[in-house]
């Protein structure tokens, strides 16, 4: 399979690899996928409680090159955004940026899920209500 240059670049130089303290209130963790499906992504964000800005993001991914690239890209994109802004990132943006072929679209979906799961976890910890917009977006796929 031929990979796009951007997928290759993220695979070779993954951004923001690592772990954060799951138990910290500032950290939201999203763990999505399943080992038997060949893809597991863990995306973590550290959110400033005052501004709701995602100040840092880390990931670890078990999966193909496209899954690694999708999650690596997701960490780059969420950093510096507010959680509301981060929730506007959609899998189609990732597909476009990485030029993913149709068989790899599920990788981008998983990355979007990981962002949402991490934000959801942070909101739960900090008693921030889910907004209607998020639920609609989740229901959409």
């Amino acid at each position, binding site marked *: *399979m*031929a*990979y796009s*240059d951007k997928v*290759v670049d993220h*695979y*070779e*130089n*993954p*951004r*923001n*690899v*690592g*772990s954060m303290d799951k138990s910290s209130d500032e950290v939201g963790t999203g*763990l*999505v*996928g*399943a*080992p*038997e*499906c*060949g*893809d*597991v*992504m*863990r995306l973590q964000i550290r959110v400033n409680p005052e501004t709701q800005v995602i100040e840092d993001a*880390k990931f*670890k*991914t*078990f*999966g*193909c*090159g496209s*899954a*690694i690239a999708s999650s690596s890209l997701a960490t780059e994109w969420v950093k510096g955004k507010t959680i509301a802004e981060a929730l506007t990132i959609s899998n189609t943006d990732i597909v476009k940026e990485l030029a993913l072929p149709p*068989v790899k679209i*599920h990788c981008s*979906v*998983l990355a979007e*899920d990981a962002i949402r*799961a991490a934000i959801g976890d942070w909101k739960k910890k900090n008693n921030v209500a889910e907004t209607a917009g998020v639920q609609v977006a989740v229901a959409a796929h």
Partner: protein
Amino acid sequence: MSDSILGLDGIPAKSINGTGEISNNGDFSGEMSNNGVIITQSTKPLPAGVTLPLYMDNHATTQMDKRVLDAMLPFFSVKFGNAASRNHAFGWEAEEAVEKSRQQIAKLIGATAKEIIFTSGATESNNLALKGIAEMYRERGNHIITQATEHKAVLDTCKRLEKYGFRVTYLPVQADGLIDVEDLKRAIVTEGEGKTILVSIMFANNEIGVVQPIAEIGKICHDNGIIFHTDAVQAVGKIPVDVQAMNIDVLSLTAHKIYGPKGVGALYVRRRNPRVQISAQIDGGGHERGMRSGTLNVPGIVGLGKACEISGEEMATEAARQTELRDYMRNKFEKALDYVHVNGNMEHHLPGNLNMSFVYVEGESLLMGINDIAVSSGSACTSATLEPSYVLKALGLGDDVAHSSIRFGLGRFNTRAEVDYVSDKLIDVVLKLRELSPLYEMVKEGIDLTKIEWAAH
């Protein structure tokens, strides 16, 4: 988090996608990502004796041996006769070459020349054997026994025979990939319309390299008056095969797995004790004792014969050399990495096969990191099905472990320098991908992955 540098002994200034484009002009190490993690770029030169791309997938096919090519060449040009032309020198010359090949093949497997039927390859041989025997012996019974990890050329042929009204038993394999001969004995039906007429068990497996107890199976079949076919594509020329001693009645083989050309194979069909008859599946001029019509592929047949001759002469030394290299490679992996294991029984095993699972690393990402090395993955991601190998699953491996498996196929032209290069590079990529793997981190923390409720996707 990781702050280690895991640069590999890669290719100088060569990009991972194999296009050969120079992306960073060999000075990549100065431009690390913020993790300091780099997968493939390196400025180190290749070790002596290693050129890229490097081929280590010899169960898929093999590079033709120069000696085979030389033997074939005249038959593409000046010696172009039709082996079925009985009345002129061109035909006689071709026929003589074909008969020589028959003898070369027969010698390698302990048969006689008259028992060799030429085909277009092992897929045809398997189809002809199974369909031809089923059709010929239908009145005797309608039961066929095979096993779960056969090649698709056998499994799919059996599926078709089921549609035609035959009953097929697919024996399971044990965790080491071998069938239990007691299962075979139990599956045999000795009386009535549902009597077993055919057993088809492969000699050696193409993915995990295990060698089935063929002599034992052959004896059971003969004791029960059942025809025994074996797909011996991976075994012939690599390990001793003797149709007499092993009671094999019908055997499939092909040239391109033994450093011969593609598009030519053979079927051994026993002529006495018992005499096996096969209904032709291709009708025409009645070539090959009426079992397989069609003008013979003389250059291919010459190549197959020569390939058999060379394989026979060099089998003992080559098997010892490949076994040593294989074990060396396995030891390197086991020394450098945790959570690795071999798949398949290693005692009853092909010399050049090594199938290993690198747990908590996904196979496709592993292959991406060793993009300039040709090996096979346990998952069929490239075929867009994302289904892990049915052979590995038959051993009882979970999908996740099957996805993490790599098949190395050592061959005649692989060297120790290549084995070192491949294993070192693979170890580096596994280490690097485990830095990225949430599963590896969780296991290291003592978390039981089976206890996690994974989000269904």
